[in-house]
């Protein structure tokens, strides 16, 4: 089951790296309680502003640690305002990171991304179930090498899940999915 952290409980204006560090400790505690495939949802409702130091320390460090320390756990951010989304996107771009944002029930990526990364993520989400690189490459009309490169990048960023599966012919293969909503 996903866990939720209500960022607005810490105030509408979130300043400084120090403040973010306190919140990150709580977020990491929640991450440790998650099972593979589950997500920590950071709800930014009622948060009007955070500075870049705050964003780097909270979101940046959590995202950097996800693939290393919390493998197969995910971070979803929701209820960002226009302002907080813009600042978070800039912060993530400067760190070469990306995050999953949930808006209106849909998932999308923000941060340091190429349009093809967004396209790949959207195609995996649209599939609605774990999907292989072979099927995805046909849907996106690209070759397998390019498809694998795109998938590896998104998996390394911690925004999609990569699991071992078995093909109908009995061969081992990887399947990809986006975190459950």
């Amino acid at each position, binding site marked *: 089951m996903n866990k939720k952290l209500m960022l607005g409980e810490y105030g509408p*204006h979130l300043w*400084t790296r120090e403040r973010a560090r306190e919140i990150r400790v709580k977020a990491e505690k929640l991450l440790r309680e998650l099972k593979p495939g589950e997500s920590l949802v950071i709800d930014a409702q009622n948060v009007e502003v955070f500075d870049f130091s705050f964003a780097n*320390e909270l979101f940046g460090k959590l995202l950097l640690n996800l693939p290393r320390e919390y493998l197969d756990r995910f971070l979803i951010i929701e209820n960002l305002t226009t302002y907080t989304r813009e600042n978070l996107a800039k912060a993530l771009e400067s760190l070469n990171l990306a995050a999953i944002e949930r808006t209106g029930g849909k998932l999308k990526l923000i941060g340091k991304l190429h349009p093809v990364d967004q396209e790949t993520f959207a195609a995996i989400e649209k599939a609605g179930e774990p999907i292989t690189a072979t099927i995805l490459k046909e849907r996106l009309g690209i070759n397998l090498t390019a498809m694998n490169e795109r998938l590896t990048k998104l998996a390394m960023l911690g925004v999609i899940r990569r699991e071992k599966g078995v093909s109908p012919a009995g061969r081992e293969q990887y399947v990809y999915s986006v975190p459950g909503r």
Partner: protein
Amino acid sequence: MPRPFAKDSATLNAISFDQILRDQDPFGNPGGRFDLSGVKLITPGALVQLAAACYALSLDGRPVQITVDNDDVRTYLVRSDFVSVVSAVAGFEPPIAELTYQVYRSYRGSNPLLLEVTKIERDTALPDLLDQIIMTLRERLYYPKYDAFDVATLVSEICQNTFDHNQQTCGFVAMQVYRSTGAPFLEIGVADYGDGLAATLKRNPKNLPINSDLDAIMRATEAGTSQYDDPTRGTGLYHLLDIAYKHRGSVQIRSGASSVRFRMDKKKGWAFAGPPMPGVQIVLALPTKT
């Protein structure tokens, strides 16, 4: 005897402050003296630099004496809280009796000073200060919310740099609006008297070599250059320039014996050599939003 401030440049700002350092050499003299005779106006950028210089001189026990002859400037120094902020480390000639004047609180009235000279000793004091800046810009200048947030974010990033660079020292911040000449603008000055950018960045071997203060300033404005081996650090000055560019403002970053003035309407920075001074001093000028 120190050379008094030139009569033909009656404004002491972040640029002409270098002239004071060059002509009067307060750091080279056993008694630190600043002769501001002839000064008729002081900007927030110069005020915080002067405060940082006074504290820097006091570190090695030098008594600082500031000579001010203009009555308006003397009043301004009190009203801007400068006199009380430096009272522990500097005296005035002729002496200034604080009780003669009343400190004009920036969050009220029509005073163009929006934030008095404020000493910041630890980052736990920052959130209240930043919220005060937002409130002042919103209520006094009717700033749109997001523009006020941008200004507070800029101040936050610069001030956090101050604490990152320094252990035993503190920083100073002040803010004023200028409406009377040309396009109105906001000036924000932030200064400290710590180790400076070159010494700070050299703590991380990945940054080496750093060949000069100018090199340090330019490197510090690139994303990811930090004293820490932490990929989430080193973006403060990078974002500072980014937001200043968005608002078509200008930024002067001074550290050691160099300063760089970035004009965002030209997307360019100009480097200047100056007399050495400890710490980092940053002055932002942003067109006002109302």
